Protein backbone atom coordinates (compact mmCIF):
# COMPACT_ATOMS: atom_id res chain seq x y z
CA UNK A 1 0.00 0.00 0.00
CA UNK A 2 1.28 3.46 -0.77
CA UNK A 3 0.34 6.59 1.06
CA UNK A 4 -2.77 8.44 -0.08
CA UNK A 5 -1.09 10.78 -2.55
CA UNK A 6 -4.36 11.32 -4.37
CA UNK A 7 -6.02 13.01 -1.42
CA UNK A 8 -6.70 16.75 -1.68
CA UNK A 9 -6.31 19.42 -4.37
CA UNK A 10 -3.25 19.95 -6.55
CA UNK A 11 -2.11 22.88 -4.41
CA UNK A 12 -2.48 21.00 -1.15
CA UNK A 13 -0.65 18.05 -2.69
CA UNK A 14 2.31 20.31 -3.54
CA UNK A 15 2.37 21.71 -0.02
CA UNK A 16 2.18 18.16 1.31
CA UNK A 17 5.10 16.96 -0.84
CA UNK A 18 7.15 20.00 0.19
CA UNK A 19 6.63 19.38 3.87
CA UNK A 20 7.43 15.70 3.47
CA UNK A 21 10.74 16.56 1.83
CA UNK A 22 11.49 19.12 4.54
CA UNK A 23 10.83 16.53 7.24
CA UNK A 24 12.89 13.87 5.46
CA UNK A 25 15.85 16.20 4.99
CA UNK A 26 15.71 17.30 8.62
CA UNK A 27 15.57 13.69 9.79
CA UNK A 28 18.43 12.65 7.53
CA UNK A 29 20.56 15.43 8.99
CA UNK A 30 19.70 14.33 12.53
CA UNK A 31 20.33 10.65 11.86
CA UNK A 32 23.47 11.00 9.76
CA UNK A 33 25.16 14.00 11.38
CA UNK A 34 26.76 11.96 14.18
CA UNK A 35 28.24 9.55 11.67
CA UNK A 36 29.41 12.27 9.30
CA UNK A 37 31.03 14.11 12.20
CA UNK A 38 32.86 10.96 13.34
CA UNK A 39 34.12 10.31 9.82
CA UNK A 40 35.24 13.92 9.74
CA UNK A 41 37.16 13.51 12.99
CA UNK A 42 38.90 10.46 11.59
CA UNK A 43 40.22 12.61 8.71
CA UNK A 44 41.64 15.36 10.95
CA UNK A 45 44.98 15.87 12.64
CA UNK A 46 45.06 15.92 16.42
CA UNK A 47 45.25 19.73 16.48
CA UNK A 48 42.19 20.01 14.24
CA UNK A 49 40.23 17.45 16.29
CA UNK A 50 40.56 19.41 19.52
CA UNK A 51 40.34 22.89 18.01
CA UNK A 52 37.62 25.10 19.46
CA UNK A 53 35.55 26.28 17.66
CA UNK A 54 35.55 23.08 15.58
CA UNK A 55 37.33 23.17 12.22
CA UNK A 56 34.71 22.85 9.49
CA UNK A 57 36.88 23.14 6.39
CA UNK A 58 40.18 21.32 6.28
CA UNK A 59 42.44 19.31 4.04
CA UNK A 60 41.64 15.66 4.93
CA UNK A 61 44.51 13.57 6.21
CA UNK A 62 44.69 9.80 6.16
CA UNK A 63 47.40 9.62 8.82
CA UNK A 64 44.96 8.16 11.37
CA UNK A 65 44.02 5.34 9.04
CA UNK A 66 47.65 4.71 8.20
CA UNK A 67 48.49 4.54 11.92
CA UNK A 68 45.60 2.16 12.66
CA UNK A 69 46.35 -0.12 9.75
CA UNK A 70 50.01 -0.34 10.62
CA UNK A 71 49.30 -1.22 14.26
CA UNK A 72 49.47 -4.92 15.04
CA UNK A 73 46.53 -4.69 17.50
CA UNK A 74 44.00 -3.62 14.93
CA UNK A 75 45.04 -6.09 12.27
CA UNK A 76 45.14 -8.97 14.77
CA UNK A 77 41.64 -8.11 15.99
CA UNK A 78 40.42 -7.75 12.41
CA UNK A 79 41.74 -11.20 11.60
CA UNK A 80 40.17 -12.66 14.77
CA UNK A 81 36.83 -11.08 13.93
CA UNK A 82 36.99 -12.46 10.43
CA UNK A 83 37.91 -15.96 11.62
CA UNK A 84 35.31 -16.30 14.38
CA UNK A 85 32.50 -14.69 12.36
CA UNK A 86 33.06 -16.84 9.30
CA UNK A 87 33.66 -19.92 11.46
CA UNK A 88 30.36 -19.43 13.25
CA UNK A 89 28.49 -18.79 10.00
CA UNK A 90 30.02 -21.81 8.28
CA UNK A 91 29.23 -24.09 11.22
CA UNK A 92 25.67 -22.79 11.54
CA UNK A 93 25.06 -23.15 7.81
CA UNK A 94 26.41 -26.72 7.60
CA UNK A 95 24.38 -27.76 10.63
CA UNK A 96 21.30 -25.59 10.22
CA UNK A 97 20.45 -25.71 6.51
CA UNK A 98 19.62 -29.46 6.39
CA UNK A 99 17.61 -29.04 9.59
CA UNK A 100 15.66 -26.13 8.10
CA UNK A 101 14.90 -28.27 5.05
CA UNK A 102 13.69 -31.17 7.18
CA UNK A 103 11.53 -28.84 9.29
CA UNK A 104 10.03 -27.28 6.17
CA UNK A 105 9.32 -30.54 4.34
CA UNK A 106 8.95 -33.58 6.58
CA UNK A 107 6.73 -34.16 9.57
CA UNK A 108 8.69 -35.89 12.33
CA UNK A 109 8.33 -36.38 16.05
CA UNK A 110 9.72 -33.55 18.13
CA UNK A 111 9.50 -31.01 15.32
CA UNK A 112 7.64 -28.44 17.35
CA UNK A 113 9.92 -29.06 20.32
CA UNK A 114 12.98 -28.37 18.14
CA UNK A 115 11.28 -25.32 16.81
CA UNK A 116 10.49 -24.05 20.27
CA UNK A 117 14.08 -24.67 21.35
CA UNK A 118 15.40 -22.60 18.45
CA UNK A 119 13.00 -19.78 19.23
CA UNK A 120 14.11 -19.81 22.87
CA UNK A 121 17.75 -19.73 21.75
CA UNK A 122 17.11 -16.62 19.69
CA UNK A 123 14.99 -14.83 22.26
CA UNK A 124 16.62 -15.49 25.63
CA UNK A 125 19.27 -13.05 26.92
CA UNK A 126 22.81 -14.08 25.87
CA UNK A 127 24.31 -13.21 29.25
CA UNK A 128 22.25 -16.04 30.77
CA UNK A 129 23.88 -18.59 28.45
CA UNK A 130 27.29 -17.01 28.79
CA UNK A 131 27.66 -17.46 32.56
CA UNK A 132 27.48 -21.29 32.55
CA UNK A 133 29.17 -21.47 29.13
CA UNK A 134 32.18 -19.61 30.51
CA UNK A 135 32.48 -22.07 33.40
CA UNK A 136 32.14 -25.16 31.20
CA UNK A 137 34.58 -23.79 28.62
CA UNK A 138 37.15 -22.85 31.24
CA UNK A 139 36.98 -26.36 32.78
CA UNK A 140 37.54 -27.75 29.27
CA UNK A 141 40.43 -25.35 28.73
CA UNK A 142 38.62 -23.68 25.84
CA UNK A 143 38.31 -20.11 27.11
CA UNK A 144 40.39 -17.50 25.28
CA UNK A 145 40.35 -19.73 22.18
CA UNK A 146 38.62 -18.68 19.00
CA UNK A 147 36.80 -22.03 18.96
CA UNK A 148 34.94 -21.06 22.14
CA UNK A 149 33.75 -17.85 20.49
CA UNK A 150 32.63 -19.75 17.37
CA UNK A 151 30.61 -22.16 19.51
CA UNK A 152 29.12 -19.30 21.52
CA UNK A 153 28.10 -17.48 18.32
CA UNK A 154 26.09 -20.48 17.14
CA UNK A 155 23.61 -19.65 19.92
CA UNK A 156 22.36 -16.80 17.77
CA UNK A 157 23.46 -17.74 14.24
CA UNK A 158 22.01 -21.27 14.26
CA UNK A 159 18.44 -20.18 15.08
CA UNK A 160 18.73 -17.36 12.53
CA UNK A 161 19.85 -19.77 9.79
CA UNK A 162 17.12 -22.31 10.53
CA UNK A 163 14.35 -19.69 10.83
CA UNK A 164 15.14 -17.91 7.61
CA UNK A 165 16.06 -20.95 5.53
CA UNK A 166 12.84 -22.69 6.56
CA UNK A 167 10.95 -19.80 4.98
CA UNK A 168 12.95 -20.11 1.75
CA UNK A 169 12.40 -23.90 1.59
CA UNK A 170 8.67 -23.52 2.21
CA UNK A 171 8.39 -21.11 -0.70
CA UNK A 172 10.01 -23.63 -3.06
CA UNK A 173 7.51 -25.81 -4.96
CA UNK A 174 7.55 -29.45 -3.81
CA UNK A 175 7.23 -30.90 -7.31
CA UNK A 176 10.90 -30.33 -8.10
CA UNK A 177 12.36 -32.69 -5.57
CA UNK A 178 9.38 -35.05 -5.79
CA UNK A 179 10.15 -35.66 -9.46
CA UNK A 180 13.77 -36.30 -8.52
CA UNK A 181 12.61 -38.89 -5.97
CA UNK A 182 10.46 -40.54 -8.64
CA UNK A 183 13.51 -40.70 -10.89
CA UNK A 184 15.24 -42.71 -8.18
CA UNK A 185 17.26 -40.04 -6.39
CA UNK A 186 17.62 -40.49 -2.65
CA UNK A 187 16.33 -37.81 -0.29
CA UNK A 188 19.89 -36.64 0.35
CA UNK A 189 20.77 -36.53 -3.36
CA UNK A 190 17.62 -34.58 -4.24
CA UNK A 191 18.40 -32.12 -1.46
CA UNK A 192 22.02 -31.68 -2.54
CA UNK A 193 21.64 -31.57 -6.32
CA UNK A 194 18.11 -30.20 -6.86
CA UNK A 195 17.08 -28.12 -3.86
CA UNK A 196 20.34 -26.47 -2.78
CA UNK A 197 21.22 -24.96 -6.19
CA UNK A 198 17.73 -23.48 -6.43
CA UNK A 199 17.95 -21.96 -2.97
CA UNK A 200 21.32 -20.26 -3.55
CA UNK A 201 20.03 -16.66 -3.17
CA UNK A 202 18.57 -17.61 0.20
CA UNK A 203 21.86 -19.15 1.29
CA UNK A 204 23.73 -15.98 0.36
CA UNK A 205 21.24 -13.78 2.20
CA UNK A 206 21.29 -15.80 5.39
CA UNK A 207 25.08 -15.95 5.24
CA UNK A 208 25.32 -12.18 5.13
CA UNK A 209 22.76 -11.66 7.88
CA UNK A 210 24.43 -14.04 10.30
CA UNK A 211 27.88 -12.76 9.39
CA UNK A 212 26.68 -9.30 10.35
CA UNK A 213 25.34 -10.47 13.73
CA UNK A 214 28.58 -12.30 14.50
CA UNK A 215 30.72 -9.34 13.42
CA UNK A 216 28.75 -7.01 15.69
CA UNK A 217 28.75 -9.18 18.80
CA UNK A 218 30.53 -7.80 21.82
CA UNK A 219 29.36 -9.65 24.93
CA UNK A 220 30.45 -13.21 24.09
CA UNK A 221 33.80 -12.11 22.70
CA UNK A 222 34.44 -9.80 25.67
CA UNK A 223 34.24 -12.73 28.09
CA UNK A 224 35.68 -15.53 25.98
CA UNK A 225 38.78 -13.87 24.48
CA UNK A 226 42.09 -12.48 25.71
CA UNK A 227 44.38 -9.84 24.21
CA UNK A 228 45.60 -12.27 21.55
CA UNK A 229 42.19 -13.57 20.43
CA UNK A 230 40.00 -10.49 20.95
CA UNK A 231 37.72 -9.32 18.17
CA UNK A 232 37.24 -5.79 16.84
CA UNK A 233 34.30 -4.80 19.10
CA UNK A 234 36.33 -5.90 22.13
CA UNK A 235 39.27 -3.81 20.94
CA UNK A 236 36.95 -0.83 20.42
CA UNK A 237 35.49 -1.20 23.91
CA UNK A 238 39.02 -1.36 25.35
CA UNK A 239 39.68 2.06 23.79
CA UNK A 240 36.78 3.55 25.68
CA UNK A 241 37.57 1.97 29.05
CA UNK A 242 37.49 4.83 31.52
CA UNK A 243 38.80 8.00 29.94
CA UNK A 244 38.45 8.50 26.20
CA UNK A 245 42.10 9.60 26.05
CA UNK A 246 43.59 11.82 23.40
CA UNK A 247 43.92 9.58 20.35
CA UNK A 248 40.49 10.44 18.95
CA UNK A 249 41.84 10.22 15.42
CA UNK A 250 42.96 6.64 15.86
CA UNK A 251 39.77 5.66 17.66
CA UNK A 252 37.42 7.17 15.10
CA UNK A 253 39.43 5.75 12.20
CA UNK A 254 39.23 2.29 13.82
CA UNK A 255 35.50 2.72 14.32
CA UNK A 256 34.98 3.61 10.66
CA UNK A 257 37.03 0.60 9.58
CA UNK A 258 34.97 -1.70 11.84
CA UNK A 259 31.61 -0.56 10.53
CA UNK A 260 32.57 -0.29 6.87
CA UNK A 261 32.32 -4.04 6.13
CA UNK A 262 28.95 -4.45 7.88
CA UNK A 263 27.41 -1.44 6.19
CA UNK A 264 28.53 -2.73 2.79
CA UNK A 265 27.22 -6.19 3.63
CA UNK A 266 23.92 -4.77 4.84
CA UNK A 267 23.33 -2.95 1.60
CA UNK A 268 24.15 -6.15 -0.28
CA UNK A 269 21.45 -7.95 1.70
CA UNK A 270 19.03 -5.04 1.98
CA UNK A 271 16.22 -6.97 0.28
CA UNK A 272 16.40 -9.63 2.96
CA UNK A 273 16.86 -7.28 5.88
CA UNK A 274 13.30 -7.63 7.09
CA UNK A 275 13.40 -11.42 7.11
CA UNK A 276 16.54 -11.20 9.22
CA UNK A 277 15.13 -8.70 11.67
CA UNK A 278 11.94 -10.54 12.35
CA UNK A 279 13.49 -14.02 12.11
CA UNK A 280 10.41 -15.82 10.99
CA UNK A 281 7.91 -13.67 12.84
CA UNK A 282 6.95 -11.89 9.62
CA UNK A 283 7.21 -13.73 6.36
CA UNK A 284 9.64 -11.98 4.03
Amino acid at each position, binding site marked *: *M*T*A*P*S*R*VGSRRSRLVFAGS*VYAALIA*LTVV*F*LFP*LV*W*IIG*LSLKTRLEIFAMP*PVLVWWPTFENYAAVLSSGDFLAAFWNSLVVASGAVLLSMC*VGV*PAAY*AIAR*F*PFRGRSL*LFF*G*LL*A*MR*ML*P*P*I*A*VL*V*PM*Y*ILFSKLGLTTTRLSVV*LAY*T*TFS*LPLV*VWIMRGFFEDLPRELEESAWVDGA*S*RAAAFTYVVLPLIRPGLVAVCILSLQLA*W*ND*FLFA*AVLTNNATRT*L*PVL*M*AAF*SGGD*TGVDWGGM*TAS*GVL*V*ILPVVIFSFAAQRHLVAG*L*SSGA*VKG
Partner: protein
Amino acid sequence: MSAWLDSQFARLAVLPTTVLMLLVFGLPLLFSLYLSFQGWSPDQALFGGRFTGTDNYQDLLTDPAFVGSLGITFGYTAVTVATELAAGLGLALLLNIDLPWINLFRTALIIPMMITPVVAAFCWKLLLDPDHGIVDYLIGSHIIWLGRPDTALVSVAVVNLWQNAPYVAVLLLAGLRSLPSEPVEAAAIDGASRLQVFWHITLPLLRPYIVVALLLRTIFEFRAFDNIYVMTSGGPADATMVLSMFTYLASFVRFDLSLGAAASWMMLLMSMALCVLFIAVIRRREAL
Protein backbone atom coordinates in the same frame (compact mmCIF):
# COMPACT_ATOMS: atom_id res chain seq x y z
CA MET B 1 20.61 -49.23 3.44
CA SER B 2 19.57 -46.42 1.15
CA ALA B 3 15.91 -47.13 1.92
CA TRP B 4 16.70 -46.83 5.60
CA LEU B 5 18.57 -43.58 4.97
CA ASP B 6 15.57 -42.21 3.10
CA SER B 7 13.13 -43.21 5.83
CA GLN B 8 15.34 -41.59 8.46
CA PHE B 9 16.25 -38.55 6.36
CA ALA B 10 14.42 -35.94 8.45
CA ARG B 11 15.81 -37.31 11.70
CA LEU B 12 19.37 -37.40 10.39
CA ALA B 13 19.02 -33.90 8.96
CA VAL B 14 18.03 -32.38 12.29
CA LEU B 15 20.44 -34.45 14.36
CA PRO B 16 23.46 -32.08 14.17
CA THR B 17 21.26 -29.08 14.97
CA THR B 18 19.77 -30.89 17.95
CA VAL B 19 23.17 -31.93 19.26
CA LEU B 20 24.67 -28.46 18.84
CA MET B 21 21.63 -26.88 20.45
CA LEU B 22 21.91 -29.15 23.48
CA LEU B 23 25.66 -28.56 23.76
CA VAL B 24 25.76 -24.77 23.55
CA PHE B 25 22.32 -24.00 24.96
CA GLY B 26 20.50 -26.80 26.79
CA LEU B 27 23.40 -28.14 28.81
CA PRO B 28 24.76 -24.74 29.92
CA LEU B 29 21.33 -23.60 31.02
CA LEU B 30 20.72 -26.76 33.05
CA PHE B 31 24.13 -26.36 34.64
CA SER B 32 23.46 -22.77 35.57
CA LEU B 33 20.11 -23.76 37.11
CA TYR B 34 21.99 -26.29 39.25
CA LEU B 35 24.69 -23.74 40.04
CA SER B 36 22.16 -21.14 41.14
CA PHE B 37 21.33 -23.32 44.16
CA GLN B 38 25.00 -23.79 45.05
CA GLY B 39 27.74 -21.87 46.76
CA TRP B 40 30.52 -22.22 44.20
CA SER B 41 33.81 -20.53 43.37
CA PRO B 42 35.84 -20.92 40.15
CA ASP B 43 38.67 -22.84 41.84
CA GLN B 44 36.31 -25.67 42.79
CA ALA B 45 35.48 -28.69 40.62
CA LEU B 46 32.35 -28.41 38.45
CA PHE B 47 30.17 -30.23 40.95
CA GLY B 48 32.31 -29.43 43.99
CA GLY B 49 30.06 -26.67 45.30
CA ARG B 50 27.90 -26.74 48.39
CA PHE B 51 24.09 -26.86 48.23
CA THR B 52 22.78 -23.63 49.67
CA GLY B 53 19.11 -23.81 48.78
CA THR B 54 17.65 -20.52 47.64
CA ASP B 55 20.35 -18.42 49.32
CA ASN B 56 21.56 -16.92 46.04
CA TYR B 57 18.06 -15.86 45.10
CA GLN B 58 17.44 -14.43 48.55
CA ASP B 59 20.74 -12.55 48.38
CA LEU B 60 19.67 -11.05 45.07
CA LEU B 61 16.23 -10.01 46.21
CA THR B 62 17.63 -8.33 49.32
CA ASP B 63 20.45 -6.60 47.38
CA PRO B 64 19.43 -2.99 46.73
CA ALA B 65 21.66 -2.96 43.61
CA PHE B 66 19.75 -5.90 42.10
CA VAL B 67 16.32 -4.60 43.05
CA GLY B 68 17.34 -1.22 41.67
CA SER B 69 18.49 -2.82 38.44
CA LEU B 70 15.11 -4.54 38.07
CA GLY B 71 13.42 -1.14 38.17
CA ILE B 72 15.99 0.42 35.84
CA THR B 73 15.70 -2.44 33.33
CA PHE B 74 11.92 -2.35 33.19
CA GLY B 75 11.84 1.44 33.04
CA TYR B 76 14.56 1.58 30.37
CA THR B 77 12.87 -1.16 28.32
CA ALA B 78 9.44 0.48 28.51
CA VAL B 79 10.70 3.96 27.60
CA THR B 80 13.08 2.91 24.81
CA VAL B 81 10.54 0.55 23.21
CA ALA B 82 7.76 3.15 23.35
CA THR B 83 9.91 5.91 21.86
CA GLU B 84 11.42 3.61 19.22
CA LEU B 85 7.96 2.51 18.13
CA ALA B 86 6.62 6.05 17.97
CA ALA B 87 9.65 7.37 16.07
CA GLY B 88 9.87 4.27 13.90
CA LEU B 89 6.22 4.51 12.93
CA GLY B 90 6.65 8.17 12.04
CA LEU B 91 9.70 7.38 9.93
CA ALA B 92 7.96 4.47 8.21
CA LEU B 93 4.94 6.60 7.33
CA LEU B 94 7.16 9.30 5.84
CA LEU B 95 9.26 6.79 3.91
CA ASN B 96 6.14 5.11 2.56
CA ILE B 97 5.06 8.22 0.63
CA ASP B 98 5.83 7.74 -3.05
CA LEU B 99 7.83 10.77 -4.15
CA PRO B 100 10.86 11.10 -6.41
CA TRP B 101 14.15 10.34 -4.59
CA ILE B 102 12.35 8.55 -1.76
CA ASN B 103 14.61 5.50 -2.14
CA LEU B 104 17.60 7.66 -1.33
CA PHE B 105 16.03 8.57 2.02
CA ARG B 106 14.97 4.97 2.63
CA THR B 107 18.61 3.95 2.31
CA ALA B 108 20.13 6.86 4.24
CA LEU B 109 17.81 6.63 7.22
CA ILE B 110 18.48 2.98 7.98
CA ILE B 111 22.24 3.37 8.23
CA PRO B 112 22.31 3.85 12.05
CA MET B 113 20.79 0.41 12.67
CA MET B 114 23.54 -1.29 10.65
CA ILE B 115 26.39 0.09 12.73
CA THR B 116 28.11 -2.21 15.21
CA PRO B 117 26.47 -1.24 18.55
CA VAL B 118 29.78 -0.98 20.39
CA VAL B 119 31.14 1.40 17.76
CA ALA B 120 27.95 3.47 17.75
CA ALA B 121 28.05 3.81 21.52
CA PHE B 122 31.72 4.64 21.37
CA CYS B 123 31.22 7.37 18.75
CA TRP B 124 28.46 8.90 20.84
CA LYS B 125 30.75 8.87 23.85
CA LEU B 126 33.07 11.16 21.89
CA LEU B 127 30.20 13.32 20.62
CA LEU B 128 28.90 13.74 24.18
CA ASP B 129 32.32 14.48 25.65
CA PRO B 130 31.96 17.58 27.87
CA ASP B 131 35.32 19.12 26.85
CA HIS B 132 35.75 18.32 23.17
CA GLY B 133 32.37 16.89 22.12
CA ILE B 134 30.32 18.54 19.42
CA VAL B 135 27.00 18.19 21.29
CA ASP B 136 27.96 20.42 24.20
CA TYR B 137 29.58 22.84 21.77
CA LEU B 138 26.42 23.12 19.67
CA ILE B 139 24.12 23.75 22.63
CA GLY B 140 26.73 25.98 24.28
CA SER B 141 26.84 24.22 27.64
CA HIS B 142 29.13 22.03 29.64
CA ILE B 143 26.96 19.07 30.61
CA ILE B 144 28.70 15.84 31.60
CA TRP B 145 25.93 13.78 29.98
CA LEU B 146 27.23 10.33 30.81
CA GLY B 147 28.83 11.24 34.12
CA ARG B 148 25.78 12.44 36.04
CA PRO B 149 23.21 10.05 37.55
CA ASP B 150 20.32 12.23 36.38
CA THR B 151 21.35 12.47 32.72
CA ALA B 152 23.22 9.20 32.09
CA LEU B 153 20.24 6.89 31.58
CA VAL B 154 18.41 9.41 29.41
CA SER B 155 21.51 9.94 27.27
CA VAL B 156 21.96 6.21 26.78
CA ALA B 157 18.27 5.88 25.88
CA VAL B 158 18.50 8.69 23.31
CA VAL B 159 21.55 7.11 21.65
CA ASN B 160 19.63 3.84 21.60
CA LEU B 161 16.66 5.59 20.00
CA TRP B 162 18.97 6.97 17.32
CA GLN B 163 20.22 3.49 16.54
CA ASN B 164 17.01 1.47 16.76
CA ALA B 165 14.18 3.69 15.58
CA PRO B 166 15.35 2.86 12.00
CA TYR B 167 15.05 -0.84 12.90
CA VAL B 168 11.37 -0.38 13.75
CA ALA B 169 10.95 1.80 10.66
CA VAL B 170 12.28 -0.96 8.39
CA LEU B 171 9.88 -3.51 9.88
CA LEU B 172 6.86 -1.22 9.73
CA LEU B 173 7.71 0.06 6.25
CA ALA B 174 7.70 -3.55 5.03
CA GLY B 175 4.30 -3.88 6.68
CA LEU B 176 2.97 -0.73 5.05
CA ARG B 177 4.16 -1.86 1.60
CA SER B 178 2.34 -5.15 1.98
CA LEU B 179 -1.03 -3.70 2.98
CA PRO B 180 -3.81 -3.67 0.36
CA SER B 181 -4.32 -0.28 -1.29
CA GLU B 182 -8.08 -0.59 -1.92
CA PRO B 183 -9.33 0.46 1.53
CA VAL B 184 -7.29 3.67 1.42
CA GLU B 185 -8.39 4.50 -2.11
CA ALA B 186 -12.02 3.87 -1.20
CA ALA B 187 -11.72 6.14 1.83
CA ALA B 188 -10.02 8.83 -0.27
CA ILE B 189 -12.89 8.74 -2.77
CA ASP B 190 -15.34 9.04 0.12
CA GLY B 191 -13.54 12.24 1.13
CA ALA B 192 -11.66 11.07 4.22
CA SER B 193 -8.84 13.30 5.41
CA ARG B 194 -5.26 12.01 5.72
CA LEU B 195 -5.56 11.84 9.48
CA GLN B 196 -8.82 9.89 9.26
CA VAL B 197 -7.32 7.47 6.74
CA PHE B 198 -4.33 6.91 9.00
CA TRP B 199 -6.32 6.51 12.19
CA HIS B 200 -9.20 4.38 10.93
CA ILE B 201 -7.60 2.35 8.14
CA THR B 202 -3.80 2.27 8.10
CA LEU B 203 -3.23 1.87 11.82
CA PRO B 204 -5.66 -1.05 12.35
CA LEU B 205 -4.29 -2.86 9.27
CA LEU B 206 -0.74 -2.31 10.46
CA ARG B 207 -1.43 -3.60 13.95
CA PRO B 208 0.04 -7.11 13.52
CA TYR B 209 3.34 -5.59 12.34
CA ILE B 210 3.36 -3.15 15.22
CA VAL B 211 2.84 -6.04 17.64
CA VAL B 212 5.80 -7.95 16.17
CA ALA B 213 8.04 -4.86 16.31
CA LEU B 214 6.90 -4.21 19.89
CA LEU B 215 7.73 -7.71 21.07
CA LEU B 216 11.05 -7.96 19.24
CA ARG B 217 12.22 -4.60 20.56
CA THR B 218 11.07 -5.51 24.08
CA ILE B 219 13.10 -8.71 23.99
CA PHE B 220 16.18 -6.89 22.66
CA GLU B 221 15.99 -3.91 25.02
CA PHE B 222 15.46 -6.20 27.98
CA ARG B 223 18.92 -7.69 27.31
CA ALA B 224 20.59 -4.30 26.63
CA PHE B 225 24.30 -4.48 27.32
CA ASP B 226 26.77 -3.32 24.63
CA ASN B 227 25.81 0.35 24.50
CA ILE B 228 25.60 0.65 28.29
CA TYR B 229 28.90 -1.15 28.83
CA VAL B 230 30.72 1.24 26.52
CA MET B 231 29.05 4.48 27.55
CA THR B 232 28.66 4.12 31.32
CA SER B 233 29.45 0.55 32.48
CA GLY B 234 26.38 0.71 34.69
CA GLY B 235 27.41 3.92 36.42
CA PRO B 236 27.45 6.63 37.60
CA ALA B 237 26.21 5.48 41.03
CA ASP B 238 24.43 2.49 39.41
CA ALA B 239 22.16 4.85 37.44
CA THR B 240 22.41 2.69 34.30
CA MET B 241 22.76 -0.70 36.03
CA VAL B 242 20.51 -2.85 33.84
CA LEU B 243 20.13 -6.57 34.58
CA SER B 244 22.62 -7.74 31.94
CA MET B 245 25.20 -5.33 33.33
CA PHE B 246 24.53 -6.46 36.90
CA THR B 247 24.85 -10.12 35.93
CA TYR B 248 28.03 -9.41 33.95
CA LEU B 249 29.67 -7.57 36.86
CA ALA B 250 28.64 -10.22 39.40
CA SER B 251 29.91 -13.07 37.22
CA PHE B 252 32.97 -11.73 35.44
CA VAL B 253 34.26 -8.91 37.62
CA ARG B 254 33.46 -10.15 41.13
CA PHE B 255 33.57 -13.79 39.90
CA ASP B 256 30.61 -14.76 42.07
CA LEU B 257 29.41 -17.16 39.38
CA SER B 258 26.72 -18.91 41.38
CA LEU B 259 25.14 -15.55 42.17
CA GLY B 260 25.50 -14.71 38.47
CA ALA B 261 23.76 -17.98 37.62
CA ALA B 262 20.85 -17.09 39.89
CA ALA B 263 20.63 -13.62 38.35
CA SER B 264 20.68 -15.16 34.85
CA TRP B 265 17.89 -17.52 35.73
CA MET B 266 15.76 -14.67 37.00
CA MET B 267 16.41 -12.91 33.68
CA LEU B 268 15.60 -16.10 31.80
CA LEU B 269 12.28 -16.52 33.57
CA MET B 270 11.34 -12.94 32.84
CA SER B 271 12.24 -13.22 29.15
CA MET B 272 10.49 -16.57 28.91
CA ALA B 273 7.34 -14.79 30.03
CA LEU B 274 7.93 -12.33 27.17
CA CYS B 275 8.50 -15.23 24.73
CA VAL B 276 5.30 -16.97 25.73
CA LEU B 277 3.47 -13.73 25.06
CA PHE B 278 5.29 -13.50 21.72
CA ILE B 279 4.28 -17.01 20.62
CA ALA B 280 0.71 -16.52 21.81
CA VAL B 281 0.39 -13.38 19.73
CA ILE B 282 1.84 -15.02 16.60
CA ARG B 283 -0.39 -18.08 17.04
CA ARG B 284 -3.40 -15.80 17.27
CA ARG B 285 -2.29 -13.93 14.17
CA GLU B 286 -1.94 -17.17 12.21
CA ALA B 287 -5.34 -18.34 13.38
CA LEU B 288 -7.00 -15.15 12.18
